[in-house]
């Protein structure tokens, strides 16, 4: 029953796509409206509220002081977690993060980590002993599709606006704060393959019927810093390269939105 309804919906969306159309009238390579509020919270060292259409997420950045990994004794640590709060979707359950939440957090994390966005050397307080642990916590409020891009935008915005406490040479906290050393703005762009069409920023109904999903994260220099095919299904080589090209172009637009929102909030 549920499956047959899904199949009817699927057919409708596939048929639309075959005609070059989407249910909400967007172009294949068009995002929904994006709203970015940096510094959304007081208690977090950095934060952002992001909407893509009706998808709503909040990211908060907090620190703790901890010990470095033995093999990188003079580097701080970033760790990214996502919570699929039962608020955000009838399909989300309370409990430890499921595989979807883990994949989301890891794809967002990888884009930031692999682009070397954070200068983790500067998070070292005392080499081998004390470093800063940066917690990037993702909270989903409303799941209306394309969580990866909403969370990726929120995460880098929260990091770009985060303040970091200064420690003195003995490793004691001072009252001084400086911006977190973030040098890049990696942005993920996610596309769905439905039938033979590649559509950007899938809305929930599209997500439910997609054949496959691809995320490409790019930096301001046009480099690709992370990719992830999601779900079942497959892509041709040329489709992947098309996704890379779209991501470079649309990622740059979203990067400008982030920068505009930050500069307006200051």
């Amino acid at each position, binding site marked *: 029953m549920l499956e047959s309804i899904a199949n009817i919906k699927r057919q409708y969306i596939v048929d639309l796509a075959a005609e070059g159309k989407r249910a909400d009238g967007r172009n294949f390579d068009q995002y929904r409206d994006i709203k970015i509020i940096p510094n959304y*919270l*007081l*208690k*977090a060292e950095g*934060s952002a509220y992001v909407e893509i259409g*009706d998808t*709503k997420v*909040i990211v*908060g*950045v*907090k*620190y*703790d002081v901890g010990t470095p990994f033995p093999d990188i004794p003079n580097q701080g640590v970033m760790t990214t*977690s996502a*919570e699929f*709060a*039962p*608020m*955000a*979707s*009838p399909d989300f359950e*309370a409990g*430890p*993060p499921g595989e979807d939440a883990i994949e989301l957090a890891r794809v967002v994390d990888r884009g930031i980590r692999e682009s070397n966005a954070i200068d983790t050397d500067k998070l070292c307080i005392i080499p081998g002993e004390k470093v800063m642990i940066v*917690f990037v*916590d993702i*909270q989903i*409020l*409303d*799941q*209306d599709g394309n969580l990866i891009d909403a969370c990726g935008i929120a995460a880098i915005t929260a990091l770009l606006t985060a303040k970091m406490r200064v420690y003195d040479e003995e490793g004691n906290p001072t009252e001084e704060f400086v911006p977190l050393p973030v040098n890049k703005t990696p942005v993920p762009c996610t596309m769905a393959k439905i039938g033979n069409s590649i559509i950007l920023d899938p809305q*929930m109904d599209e997500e439910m019927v997609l054949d496959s999903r691809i995320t490409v994260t790019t930096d301001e220099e046009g480099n690709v810093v992370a990719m992830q095919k999601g779900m079942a299904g497959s892509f041709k080589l040329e489709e992947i390269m098309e996704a890379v090209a779209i991501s470079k172009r649309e990622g740059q637009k979203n990067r400008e939105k982030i920068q505009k929102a930050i500069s307006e909030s200051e």
Partner: protein
Amino acid sequence: MERCDGRKNDELRDVHMEVGVLKRADGSSYVEWGNNKVFASVYGPKEVIPRFLARNDKAILRCKYNMTPFSVEDRKRPGPDRRSIEIGKVTSGALEPAILVEDYPNSMIEIAIEIMQADAGTRCAGITAATLALVDAGIPMRDLVASCAAGKSNDEIVLDLCKEEDNSGQADVPIAIMPRSDDVTLLQMDGILTEDEVEEALKLAMSGCKTIYEMQKKALKVKYGG
């Protein structure tokens, strides 16, 4: 003695309420109460899973209260702790008397309260928000549930403790009421109070609840008119 934020003893912090802020949830709301930022959602009435929890005489309520890791000064580990579980339980008990649960046997109403920023009084803000989300979800109710705390600070009974007052405070009495009947559906208290002070605090908190009640009705009117 002046209060930390210059309020009078019977004065609430600034409170802002919004109804219907989320798309997926059947009902939702957002409440800002001083520096508290709280979202609430309602799903249901829906099928009970697992089945054996279902009751043939009423809907069951499941209430999850959660603080995000970044809602407090020191990062909180994700996931429920004992405090959250207890607050979820008393919140459920505070809301159930107002809901016509007997109209929906064999079903379940799921309430989620997410604290994005915490600054004393989150459980009252959460109950207040959850009530708005219940109405937004179309759940039939006997009355709204309005919640507010009174407490003792600097030897005086005052309304709606802020964080500094709560930390150094002598007592805190969060309550919730159904304002039409003055039925108290949430009552907790910690600290040290004489019998008379308990009564004074309860009366002050009830007056705070009534102010909140008016704000709830206004927020619902903004959304639904009438």
